[in-house]
């Protein structure tokens, strides 16, 4: 049973790794680099927090 579990772990690892690589490729070819890297630190915070004393 333990050996079967070990092989199953290899199988799951390979399938999920391939899925992530596929999804990565798909996202990177669908969206522009400008959109993907458009996150800005503190952007939402600046809107929601007034920092008034």
């Amino acid at each position, binding site marked *: 049973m*333990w*050996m079967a*579990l*070990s*092989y199953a*772990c*290899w199988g*799951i*690892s390979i399938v*999920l*790794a391939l*899925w*992530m*690589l596929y*999804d*990565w490729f*798909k*996202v990177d070819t*669908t*969206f522009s*680099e400008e*959109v*993907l*890297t*458009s*996150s*800005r*630190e*503190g*952007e*939402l*915070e*600046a809107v929601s*927090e*007034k*920092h*008034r*004393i």
Partner: protein
Amino acid sequence: MTITLEPTVHGDRVSLLRVLGPAHVWALGVGIVLVGEFTGWNFAADKGGALAALIVCWVVGLLYTSVAMIDSEVTSTVAAAGGQYAQAKHIVGPLMAFNVALFLVFAYTMLEVSDAILLGDTIVAKAGVEGLTHNSFIAATIVVLAWLNYRGVLMTLNVNFVITAIAYISIVVLFFSVSPWTQGAVLKLNELVTPDNALPYGWIGVIAAFQFGIWYYLGIEGTTQAAEEVRSPARSLPYGTMAGMITLLIAAAMTWYVCASMMPWEYLGITYYPLWDAGKLTGSPLLENLLFIATLLAALASANGCINDAARAWFSLGRDRYLPTWFSAVHPKYRTPYRSILFLLPIALAFAFIADLNQAITFSILSGVLQYTFMSINIVMFRKKWPLGSIRRGYTHPFHPLPAIVLFCLCVVTFFAIFLGFGSQLIAMVAFYFLISLWFHFYRYKFVRRGDQFTMPWPKPQGY
């Protein structure tokens, strides 16, 4: 599996999602740490005896309470992914921030590696099958958790909450199963810890035990990495962090009491599975299996939180151009730093396959203690540059500067303890951070847009 992606669904900007609450913050912090109760803290007994393991439980608990209080105040104000990195950037400066981010990435990645090795070794020990190695279990742990992190932070931390709670409850169940109010029936503390063997190496043994006392709480400061993804950072982060610290202090005390009352310090100091062993010693198959499963769940929860935190620190470096901006990409559907997660995945796998548990955890602890030393200086500068009343704080820690002084002094003691056991690794690590700082200062910093990196809407600091 087919995924439908809408190129314009999020408008011009793709950011991390604000979906987390205080329970997720608790799950992140306690999830990373709790594995230390299942293995690690007990090596303190090997260094200084069972009483030394208890002394460092409380003294290092003081260190981490200072960390939690200081962190809660600063991060309730600097609510950005990257946690201590973003704090350092705004309060100390870019070079310190770069170093702190590397401390974070190293501490969490090496802890993730240690968790995966522990999980693999635990399964192999349970199976007792010849020819079965831990490699497949290590690979599955790292890849499945990376996939979970890739798919979204809400599910990742929901899973962490459930598995951390089960692991924690198992400690409570064990504690009450051994009749803690009665000595002599199951627990034999008065026989196992006597005046003659309580501190077999004297007080120098207590100092040496600090190195492993860190395991009781290592990683609680990781809660701040969720700052950009919690709905109300000023409330959730202090609440989740302090609740997590209280939870861990209780778990550490229960763990020491049960284990020191069931195993002689000579064995307790070398076993890899103190709680699982305690479960076996009760003679109950139910408790034995419960503690076995809890050990696995604690390792999973820790590795899961570590992947989350290391990826956010790496992502933040990319976003500020301290590293190539390529790393700052956010997945348009899952809203996670997917490239950072994928980049760190093979690094963790490589270390897990080639490093041993002691080396990995020593690098993690070293990076963690460097980070805590920074935090003691950081809070003093923060209060000096922006005194109380000058900016809004979600939480104000009491007795300043006492916690900062206590934290700094305990970090010095811990460095000495690490030097006693792993002097060459300590020197190698400090040399690495020195060289990488030169690279950042003389080469990389010219790519940084200096005005863009300071994002908090604060007034000018005093004295500037």
